[in-house]
């Protein structure tokens, strides 16, 4: 084979290898970075995400200290429901399973579906805040004028660092009625 064409072949091979890197980085950006970010957030509590449903284990309640849990509620734009925690805050013992409720009312004249998204500060407390039952695990449907008491059951882990005395849990309520309708029609 002539020198020129082996050079051409090697050029083509190199170019294809670099193209392979390009494709790999594209795949990395779309399919690896989001799950990597989610995993990182779950492990470090980085963006205040509190993780999925927790299976409670039998453990002693630490009665020597209390942690104050504050509850906040925000409606995302275009979400007209009345949405508020039943109580502004509660003091709990680490290890103790507690239930609180959020009150929601749909004041419109049509059935709507909402998704509550939790977010928690301080971030480092997120990994110690376990939800055994949360209205945020599912979408909530309310028909026109209907009200509901939405339950949240949680346990603050006994290993929570001593310096954490207040945890602030915020729920943002989003209107997902349209998205669901769209998904169902596709």
């Amino acid at each position: 084979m002539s020198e020129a064409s082996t050079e051409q072949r090697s050029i083509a091979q190199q170019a294809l290898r670099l193209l392979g890197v390009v494709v790999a980085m594209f795949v990395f950006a779309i399919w690896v970075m989001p799950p990597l970010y989610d995993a990182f957030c779950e492990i470090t509590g980085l963006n205040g995400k509190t993780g999925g449903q927790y299976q409670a284990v039998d453990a002693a309640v630490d009665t020597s200290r209390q942690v104050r849990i504050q509850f906040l509620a925000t409606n995302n734009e275009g979400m007209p429901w009345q949405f508020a925690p039943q109580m502004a805050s509660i003091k709990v013992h680490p290890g103790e399973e507690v239930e609180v409720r959020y009150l929601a009312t749909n004041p419109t004249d049509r059935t709507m579906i909402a998704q509550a998204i939790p977010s928690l500060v301080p971030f480092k407390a997120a990994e110690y805040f376990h939800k055994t039952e949360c209205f945020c695990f599912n979408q909530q449907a309310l028909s026109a004028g209907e009200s509901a008491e939405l339950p949240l059951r949680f346990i603050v882990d006994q290993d929570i660092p001593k310096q954490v005395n207040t945890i602030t849990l915020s729920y943002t309520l989003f209107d997902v009625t349209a998205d669901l309708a769209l998904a169902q029609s596709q």
Partner: protein
Amino acid sequence: MTQGVTPISHNVYDLHMDIFWWCVGIGVVVFGVMFYTMIAHRKSKGAKAANFHESTSLEILWTVVPFAILIIMAIPATKSLIEIYDTKESEVDILVTGYQWKWKYEYVGEDVSFFSNLSTDPNEINNLVPKGPNYLLEVDEPLVIPIRKKVRFLVTAADVIHSWWVPALAVKRDAIPGFINESWAYVEEPGVYRGQCAELCGKDHGFMPIVVEALSEADYAVWLSEKKASAAKLKALTEKEFTFDELYAQGEAVYGKNCAACHQPDGKGISGTFPAIAGSSVATGVLGGHMNMVINGSSNNPMMSAFGAQLSEVDIASVITYQRNAFGNNMGDQVQPIDVLKFKQAK
């Protein structure tokens, strides 16, 4: 940069000035050598070029020395950052929510919450009247906090990303929809401190300022109880029967503050983006439909907010009355605050 009114803001200012002087020093050295060379080593002055072109020891020297300077800078910076992040043991908590294009402040555990809108007259912005001294940095309802108490700001947003920034407090925190962030300040002196939104959030990003009024503990207590009392008073006003002219006038003011940004002062909207109110099928249609749109927002366009949660019944009744009768709509009907309340509670 302002020195500000909190220990943190003073800290940040000092850090800024330290780094600044380091940078000036480095600049003076580097540029000094350059200017000297440009004068002393010009060909026109007869300079002959030397031939040296490498020196490992020099390279090591000017790698290690800058590295050492960086370590010196990093130590106080680390200390400051850790202090800024220490939000524990706050005495007052405020939920700050960014909206397009205003802020909402909620005093956690106190049942006081209100919106804070830019209060600069549009005529100043449009150069029709002279601009006041706090042009673009004034609001209708400032955030009031006590001095000498650790105040924690819980920051979130209801639509796009905003950012809450008050230079005098050295607090800047992004407001992310669906997520909560926290920061804090301990204000030492009473006063009025002004800031602005610091993340592009749409067309009126430059028109949603922040005003923080720091009061003595006693004055703050008085303000807080007055705020709670006025919420009760507003409830009473809802029962009142207003005249058409009262509703129209109030509605015009509410429209200017809350609707004109998108639907435009002349009610004509912006083609392709914001529908017109003039001649709109909603504003000239069934009253219930119009009330539903204003109170509950649009079901298919997230940019039309649910104002039922943001405005009082009096304001909603007024602005609907105004919209139905201004811009050539001339529907002749009106809405009373009590109708709005009944609509919200209905079914």
